[in-house]
């Protein structure tokens, strides 16, 4: 089977899930990302990325308790799986190794 790939936006969301650890749910990820990226993101993009990554096995989810806000809807919290962490590591290693290859002279 082909190794599941990790898209650019997915990688950002996955990083955010890992960073927020156990407090990561749709709106929280959205707000953090908007702050970090300094641009507007639509919540649907987050949902799509989360769903895809859950299908790939990078994250897993659980429902939180019912609260008064959100019209009584439960939050769905995401945590990164070992497989997801591994994918992030690989991505990071890959980028670093290529980054190392940049010859210093070119920017003199």
């Amino acid at each position, binding site marked *: 089977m082909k190794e599941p790939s990790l898209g650019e936006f997915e990688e950002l969301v996955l990083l955010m899930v890992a960073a927020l650890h156990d407090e990561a749910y*749709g*709106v929280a990820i959205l707000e953090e990302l908007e702050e970090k990226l300094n641009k507007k993101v639509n919540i649907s993009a987050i949902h799509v990325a989360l769903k895809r990554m859950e299908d790939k096995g990078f994250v897993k989810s659980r429902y939180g308790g019912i609260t008064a806000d*959100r019209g009584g809807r439960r939050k769905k919290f995401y945590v990164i799986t070992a497989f997801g962490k591994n994918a992030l590591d690989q991505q990071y290693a890959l980028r670093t190794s290529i980054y190392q290859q940049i010859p210093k002279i070119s920017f003199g």
Partner: protein
Amino acid sequence: MEIHPPKRALKFLRWFCREDFLEEIEGDLIEVFEKQHKVSPSRARRKFRWSVIRHFRPEFIKTFTIGQNSIQLAMLKNYFKTSYRSLLRNKGYSFINISGLTLGMAVAMMIGLWVNHELSYNTYHENYDRIAQVMRNKTNNGIIYTSHSQARPLEFILREEFGDSFEHIIMGGWLTDHVLSHDQVTLTQEGNYLQEGAPQMLGLDMLSGVINGLDEPNKIMLSRSTAIALFGAKDPIGEIIRMDNSYDLIVSGIYADLPLNTTFGPTQFIVPWSLLVSSKENVRADETEWNTLYQIFVQLADHADIQAVNDKIRRIPSEKDEDEAESNTEIFLHPMKDWHLRSNWKNGIQAGGRIQYVILFSIIGAFVLFLACINFMNLSTARSQRRAKEVGIRKSIGSHRGQLIGQFLNESFFVVIIAFLLAVGIIVVFLPQFNSFMKIRVDFPWDSLAFWIISIAFVLVTSLLAGSYPAFYLSSFRPIQALKGSFKAGKGAGLSRRILVVVQFAVSITLVICTLFIFRQVQHGKLRPTGYEREGLIQVRIQQDAFKNKYDLFKNAFLQSGAVLEMSGTHSPLTDVWWGSSGLTWEGMPANFRSNFDRIRVSHDYGSSIQWEIVRGRDFSRDIASDSLAVIINESAAAYMGMEDPIGKTIDANGTPWRTIIGVVKDMVMQSPYQTVHQTLYTIGGGFNFYTLRLNPANSTQENLARLEKVFKSIMPQVPFNFEFVDEAYAQKFRGEERVGSLAWVFTGLAIFISCLGLFGLSSFMVEQRLKEIGIRKVLGASVLSLWRLLVKDFVTLVVIACFIAVPLAFYFVNDWGQQFEYRIALPWWVILAAATAALSITLFTVSYQTLRAVNITPTECLKDE
């Protein structure tokens, strides 16, 4: 204050979103919304809506087939499965039931197509509602006769004095065969002389050339198919066509063929009226004479009211001409919309026409469809009693009544749809045959919205009605009752079924009697002696202009070829009379009597070639010069004139002696074989339209015709050799009635089939009801025969009642229909007997199927329930 996200967007989200994502997505959206709302409520709402739309993507949309929540859908699937299984379980019954409904629908659709075709007649013309033909009412001996023929001076009067009422006034000749030739191609086509303006009035669709193509005498306008036949791919405009081997005409325009459902449809080409005037001396003479030999078509001016125009022009003929005043002639406009449907006149009054057939067939169609529906409902209902247990079980398991109603309606809808699709299939397959049989051309109305709306409405109504009994009645049972099987249908149901069977059988028996009568009547006409020998006789259609003064040449050449024994020329074909004279007088004629005779101009050898039978006196003879002033009359004419011994008497015209009677012939059937023969005068004279040839029986017909064609071509290479066998032309006279006859057979067959379905429905219903009774009787020792008698007795009674209703009804119709035939047969008694016997045997056969099955059942089978 509570804040709510936009309701509709939320509803939409809930509708499309997968259950397992809904809570998360909804929650997040609301949270974002609430936060946003504090900043800017309107922006929050906008953003919420937009986000919902953004979520509308494959990942989040639920599957809309059988969703996890869709029990209704699952049930619907189950209903279809149940319907399908119950159809399969009773294959024979399903077949009969569906085919009955299919047949009813197919017949109704075919009739509908035909009716639509008839009603659409002439609507092709743009000025359809403004075009009319001038008609003429003439009184003769107290009876008003209506005809199309008009005098030429009438046109001038209409133009000069009433011109502002009309957009167009068009003189016209009559549609007749003409020979058209160009290069090597020669055709015989039907065409007409029409005045300038006719193409504009008719709104012809010009494919090339000009619409004003009749402005000069030497022009001709062709229909597309004629142009292709003559010129092939070549551009015909400006080419020369020779007509009737006499006139050279320039093609000035090509128009799209007129559709079959137009009165002008058969007109394959139009030549200018001015050609007729310039080429025929008698037509020129008629410009000042009041000779009613032509047709006049008009298009009313936009502001003109047909009634007002009628009032203005009504008395013109009587005011302008003495003879017309004497017969109190009036004219009126017959609007184009009535040309096809209302063209019969009785004593000057509109007396229907094809519209009667249209109405009759519409009624038949509606009736057939109605009966088919009722039968379908009856059969479904009778069978549905078997489903009572299913109802009981479904109810016990927890079905609501609404669900059961839905199930049964769904089931009948399923069956009706099958029948409908089959009916459409039948129409598509049989439409070509139907078209050629009815001599029409209609296509299946795939693109007609009205057709589909009516069809869908019909399917819905039928399935609702057919399904209503099981749906609403059976579903009302208490489960325990249904399971025990202790319920009864109302008494009313039985009675209405009985009435239905009686009605259906009465109709069937009436139809059988009428059909047999039509059949007998046609036979009767066919067996009627014609008064001449039509076997081995052919008539060649000739054009007067081209064949002028060629009679002797042809006769000698034909006789020399050895292919014919005798030949003669005549003005009318042997199978019709084209001419008449009125106002002739004779000695002993009652005062104030205005006589009327059919006239036939013949050559001397007419009698010997057709082999008529001289009763008194002698035939014409070339050797007696005075025979050019002689007349031979038929027996009817002798009786009409009241002459005991007519030989040697004279007939006068305008007070002076006209012709001397030299012979009397036996009546010959030339017009309708069902009418009494008219008083007819045969005189010597030219202007032939036909050569009548007696073929030489020593040679084969093939051989004779080949020789004749060779001779013909050697004299007239430009003209096609067009001939017909007189016996075939005579047989044509029966086509109309034969067609009515075959239609009657179809409807009779259909009526019998439908009646049988009705009977089948009733008998299965009855047997179902009495199954227990039969079981008990069997246990007590009843024989199969006695049980069969018991069950069949009821039905035989019904059919006997139907017979008693049908016989007087059939007598009435047969009499009514027979009125139109002067030469008719009495209704033979055996016809009634045959119809009744047929009805009874069909009944016994149909009913026995059900009863014998019931009677042969093992008593324990039907009794074990209790």
